[in-house]
């Protein structure tokens, strides 16, 4: 049996205003409310609302056989409440079907794991509480920001927070000859480890509308046949897990409606469920489904799902990124010492990984995917606004 696991990441950062030195100390809002509202409206209209409706219909149609999972950040939930309450309602309706698993993560989609363990655990707890409050859901599976993972993360997540499963990228340099289709264990064999099958996941997330791709256009038939082929290698009836992890904004936002992405999704479950040895499941259920001794994998160095390198270089490569994040965690510790809850909330919104992603210079010359996602004109500007915002925050201490 091969189980398809869909996990969709739902996240919207609080984008910073163009903070100038002269604005410092004027106690003005550091975040670009207008832009954040506009983006939320746009994405809700193009992606969240239509896709949620589509998925709800599919879940109802297949009566429990079509199952999916979401990870929704605290920043996204807060901005739903501010700018698009009906989006939050539509997610609640999905969760209420019982066919949706919610994953745990850091409330602010932050890189805290890499810099400040206490802050990391605080944000994980905050997020768990938020899922409890908003959806009445207790999270059992963990995904760290951008699927960043290394061995000691699993210790924290298992020992302190008691998560049972963790998901990350199926990085070649770790897997080597292995396939990401099996459920693995972390290095200490305490926790279930699921790995993204990036070739197929990225076919949907990145290549779906790319006319230069030899496989264009991607039809449901073709895609399900590929999946079917994956099962041939398994002769011992071990359960396989095909982890299709992607940004939720893939639907209607990164891949426009005109590309046929919604049609694809509409017919995909049907085609999968026609075949008796294929099905859907969610991460927390893999525990019981793994009918074999799970091999343990060690991740000495951090991995992520970003860019070709699948490492931290999208957020923490150049000097601007490093100076910005080091300044941030230094300031955060000072704010925590002071114990001002209002400042702490503002600061935490600035811990979101997107801020550092905007400062990435790797692909700037080529006008690549980073640029597509950045609200600023250049990495330099993103850096200037961020540093000015930090300086402002420090003056408020």
């Amino acid at each position, binding site marked *: 049996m091969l189980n398809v696991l869909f996990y969709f990441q739902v996240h919207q950062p609080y984008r910073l205003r163009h903070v100038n*030195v*002269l604005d*410092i*100390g004027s106690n003005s809002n550091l975040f670009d409310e207008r832009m954040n509202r506009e983006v939320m409206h746009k994405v809700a209209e193009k992606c969240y609302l239509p896709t949620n409706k589509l998925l709800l219909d599919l879940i109802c149609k297949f009566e429990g056989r079509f199952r999916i999972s979401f990870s929704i950040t605290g920043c996204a939930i807060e901005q739903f409440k501010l700018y698009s309450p009906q989006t939050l309602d539509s997610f609640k309706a999905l969760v209420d079907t019982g066919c949706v698993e919610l994953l745990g993560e850091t409330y602010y989609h932050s890189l805290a794991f890499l810099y400040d363990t206490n802050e990391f655990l605080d944000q994980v707890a905050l997020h768990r509480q938020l899922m409890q409050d908003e959806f009445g859901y207790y999270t059992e599976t963990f995904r760290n920001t951008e699927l960043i993972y290394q061995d000691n993360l699993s210790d924290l997540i298992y020992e302190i927070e008691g998560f049972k499963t963790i998901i990350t990228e199926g990085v070649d340099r770790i897997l080597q000859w292995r396939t990401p289709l099996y459920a693995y264990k972390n290095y200490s064999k305490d926790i279930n480890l699921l790995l993204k099958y990036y070739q197929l996941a990225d076919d949907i997330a990145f290549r779906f509308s790319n006319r230069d791709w030899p496989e264009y256009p991607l039809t449901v038939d073709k895609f399900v046949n590929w999946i079917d082929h994956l099962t041939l290698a398994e002769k011992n009836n071990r359960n396989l897990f095909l982890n299709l992890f992607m940004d939720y904004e893939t639907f209607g936002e990164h891949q426009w409606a005109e590309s046929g992405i919604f049609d694809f999704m509409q017919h995909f479950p049907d085609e999968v469920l026609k075949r008796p040895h294929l099905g859907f499941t969610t991460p927390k259920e893999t525990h019981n489904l793994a009918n074999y001794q799970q091999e343990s994998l060690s991740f000495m160095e951090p991995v992520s799902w970003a860019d070709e390198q699948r490492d931290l270089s999208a957020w923490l490569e150049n000097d601007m990124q490093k100076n910005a994040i080091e300044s941030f965690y230094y300031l955060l510790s000072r704010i925590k010492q002071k114990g001002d809850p209002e400042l702490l909330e503002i600061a935490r919104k600035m811990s979101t990984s997107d801020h550092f992603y905007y400062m990435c210079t790797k692909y700037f010359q080529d006008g690549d995917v980073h640029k597509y996602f950045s609200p600023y004109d250049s990495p330099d500007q993103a850096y*200037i606004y961020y540093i000015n915002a*930090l300086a402002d925050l420090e003056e408020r201490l």
Partner: protein
Amino acid sequence: MKVLMFTWEFPPLISGGLGMACYGMVKALLAQGIKIDLVLPTKEMVYFPLREESDVDTLPTVFLDPVMHTEYLSRRFKTMNERLEFLGISTQPESYLQLTDIQLFMTAVKKEYWLSETVTKEEHEVWDEMTTHLIGDEDLIRKVQEYTLRAERFARELDFNLIHVHDWLTYPSGMIAKRLSGKPLVVHMHATEFDRAGGPGDERIHKIEHSGMSYADRVIAVSQYTAQMVMSRYRIDTGKIRIVHNAITISEDTVLTKRRIFKGPTILFLGRITLQKGPDYFLEVAQRVLKVHPEARFIMAGTGDMARKLLRRSANMRLMNKFLFAGFLNRKQVETILRASDIYVLPSVSEPFGISPLEAMAFGITSIISKQSGVAEVVNHAFKIDYWDVDLMAETINHLIENPAKCRKMGIDGMHEVNRIHWTEAAQKIREIYSSLLALYIKSNP
């Protein structure tokens, strides 16, 4: 006495360093009874007959063509700027913007971004100025050629006793006017190409500078420092050179009182971020000071071709959120940043005069001035340090941070000193130069 004056910049529309200096000088000359016909790089064939002190602000205008002039007089303009825009004056100090700045600007921007609603009003103004006036079909040299071709008509049709021109952009006009009228020519040297380029610079400009100064009857240098440069680099006859230091004009609506932005000591660099201004030395100093005084804040205000490099370098030095980039500031914003600063640093590699430290001192800000500047010759209550001596600069700043009372006293003494520097004195010296030239002229043309 009537002077035909050519200059490239004049406020309110152009207020770069050259424009501000010309404004102060002309106003003070008018106060001493000298009449000036001013020619600016306007699109229309006009000149500005200035007779009284107040004329520098109203800029009365005459079209050379009488028919055009009658038509002009019949027009109604709502504002001064509207009227000046009709005459076609660009609003950016072009002589101070290098082609590389513009290229950098053009490659660094996305048009869609600048025209979108997300840009601030100030940024939009920069865009407008850049696009309307700089990215035209002609480069600066060609504009100078056109300006020069028109000088002939002014020289023939106007009546004057002598000619006074400012910087290389107007030297060719001055030479033509002298050739046609035979009247004495004074060329004013505000900045040489060596200063601007921070290196050899554009050879065409050197040639213009050299021939202008050679053909002139008097060369006015804005400092001893510049006079040295004129003698050693251009080999101009020492007997022709006179030194007249610049002064400042603080407009009456300027608010000088302190209004802090940062709790910690605030140290300011204000100027173009180019090799000439030594911004890299400022960064070195900041790194040294912040090791001892992490509570200090360093502000770099301005734009220029070195901005990106310095931004990356400051991040590499891990100066955290203590070294900030304020970008391009307009007049009002400059005032805001000056009110918020405690120490001003001018680390210029080569600064013929350098008016902005005087302005900073007028705000009571303690100033550290590069020894390689003209302004160092006119003030005593400021620290004068070689631009390359970053250790000494850092020590000085540390000392000032540790002794705030001393820092304040230095600032106040500096303010009093600067308040005594008036254009009147400079204008008197210029008038004496005019008079002696006229006397010589009359003697040789009886």
